[in-house]
């Protein structure tokens, strides 16, 4: 699936990232040591059920977890800056440098476009504000040209009318495309797309995915695509990380994982996918995804796993490495 322009240089590496949320009794871990890496021009997919920590991962990469709500408790996130070749450790830089990364190097689009725009401000002001943060001096003309070009590339026309409207005047699909244009305004190299289509109708999902693929090629973006929907991920991702209860249970090239899943959870996920034209019932995974924080000893998937035995409940399985692939299961060594 890696038919896009790819080079092997890493652009983002995160290792042993942990994060937790506060609650009245104790801190609830949402990420428990996740490693991910992203190459220049690559698209990685992050899959998992709700509560697996995938959205927390998106927030953590940009250090966006509210101080009141939780904290990032460990790990390193290293971003390779292109111009200087310098490595920036996002998890330890100061706030003003962090602001230069946010939106300028790494952008984020979220699930519900209506909540990512300020409802009382017109679209143009959103663009202008975001542009001004990263370009101290600029000509209004240049900004207008740039925004028009971006809107054009996400198929929103005419720019003048779009920019003069308030967020609530758009349909969800249009606004999500506008939010992509906004995310790309300062020419970021990485785009984090957190469930970008799950609040949209299926037909509109398709369009948004097309736009995303198109943008990826046009702007040579590296993309972190987060979704609960493996079908969507398979459309765009080169490599996949499967998250379960705040940990990566399996990772590797998309094609290989789809062909030959190793971890029982991945296997179950793939079996539960509805296939076009296939007969028979959808096989669901027995049990429920664990509540964050309710994870006990041993493999967190063990309670729902049909292969699990005593050992699985006692010890946490270490990752098994094989080429580009990795998985964490005692039963599949």
């Amino acid at each position: 699936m890696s038919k896009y322009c790819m080079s092997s240089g890493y652009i983002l590496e995160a290792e042993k990232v942990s994060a937790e949320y506060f609650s009245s009794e104790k801190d609830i871990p949402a990420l428990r040591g996740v490693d991910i890496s992203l190459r220049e021009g690559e698209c990685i997919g992050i899959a998992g059920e709700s509560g697996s920590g995938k959205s927390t991962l998106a927030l953590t990469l940009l250090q966006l977890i509210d101080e009141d709500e939780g904290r990032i408790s460990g790990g390193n996130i290293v971003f390779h800056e292109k111009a200087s070749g310098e490595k920036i450790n996002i998890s330890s830089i100061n706030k003003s440098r962090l602001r230069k990364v946010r939106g300028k190097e790494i952008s984020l689009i979220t699930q519900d476009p209506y909540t990512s725009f300020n409802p009382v401000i017109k679209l143009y002001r959103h663009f202008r504000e975001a542009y001004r943060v990263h370009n101290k001096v600029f000509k209004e003309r240049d900004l207008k040209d740039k925004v028009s070009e971006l809107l054009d590339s996400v198929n929103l026309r005419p720019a003048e009318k779009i920019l003069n409207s308030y967020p609530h005047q758009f349909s969800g699909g249009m606004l999500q495309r506008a939010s992509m244009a906004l995310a790309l305004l300062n020419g970021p190299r990485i785009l984090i797309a957190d469930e970008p289509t799950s609040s949209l109708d299926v037909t509109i999902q398709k369009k948004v995915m097309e736009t995303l693929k198109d943008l990826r090629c046009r702007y040579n973006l590296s993309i972190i695509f987060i979704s609960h929907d493996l079908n969507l991920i398979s459309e765009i991702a080169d490599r996949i990380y499967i998250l379960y209860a705040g940990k990566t249970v399996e990772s590797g090239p998309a094609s290989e994982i789809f062909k030959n899943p190793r971890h029982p959870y991945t296997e179950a996920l793939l079996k539960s996918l509805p296939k076009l034209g296939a007969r028979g019932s959808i096989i669901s995974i027995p049990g429920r995804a664990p509540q964050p924080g309710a994870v006990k000893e041993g493999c967190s998937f063990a309670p729902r796993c049909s292969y699990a035995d005593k050992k699985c409940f006692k010890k946490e399985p270490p990752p098994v490495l094989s080429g580009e692939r990795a998985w964490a299961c005692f039963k599949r060594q």
Partner: protein
Amino acid sequence: MMIPVLFGITLITFFVMHLTPGSPVDGLMMSPEVDAGAILRLRETYGLDRPLHIQYFSWLSRVATLNFGSSFRDGRKVTLKIAERLPATILLNVVYLFLIFALAIPIGIISAVKHNKAIDKILAVCVFAGYSVPAFVVALILMMYFGVELGWLPVSGMVSINYEFLPFWSKVADIASHLVLPAVSTAIGGLAFLSRYLRSSMLEVIKQDYIKAARARGIPEKSLVLVHTLRNAFIPMITVFGLLLPALIGGSVVFETIFSWPGMGRLAYEAIMARDYPVVMGIGVVMAVLTLIGNFLADIGYAAADPRIRYE
């Protein structure tokens, strides 16, 4: 909304007046301040022998043409009496509103931004004290300390005795010095209410995803607070302004009386104490109208501030 409310308020005012045991006139006869002519005039204007509902509607039709009749005490037109007192009330309330908004906004912002930090907790205690403290007692104590003990500020009226002979700027300074105590003591309750409201409103907005999204675009915290959060948090404050008005107007009765402020509130108190019915009822209607105008302005402001309302 406006018409039934106005209707209801005139109804309440009218029937409260008729709650008096016997007719309003009986009460008056015993009052030495009222002369026989006034009682006759009253019988005439109110048609007191006719059934209640007819009295009400004939009164209402006169009210519609701003004819509230004349005062029992000095026979002057009620509209005129109110009109000459209104500017003082409006001056006091404008200063009051300016004061509470000018102070509540920074207090609200600081306590929301420093949520749960020491300064927020200190401000929360102050705010709690602010709306628990009986403002009229504070007014009396300020009056005694700054007016009597220190002699810094005048304690009653709006102007000094020699006001007429002062040059223009001294006149302004004179009124300003008379304004300090009434304005400050009235402001305590409103200030506490408003800053608390703004704080919780800002905390609500700060939690919104669009603030997080803006942060993800690299927008600095300062503009997050001042542009995005404050603007959105301010929208519900406009409605609060509408809610604040009745309390404000009611409060003016108490505070204008304490400080002998020559406004409508004190006129209301004097009229109530003297059973000057036409004046009382006239003020009741004017207060209701002022409240409604305030609410109407708040609605317009709301629509102006929130495009989602405007385009519906």
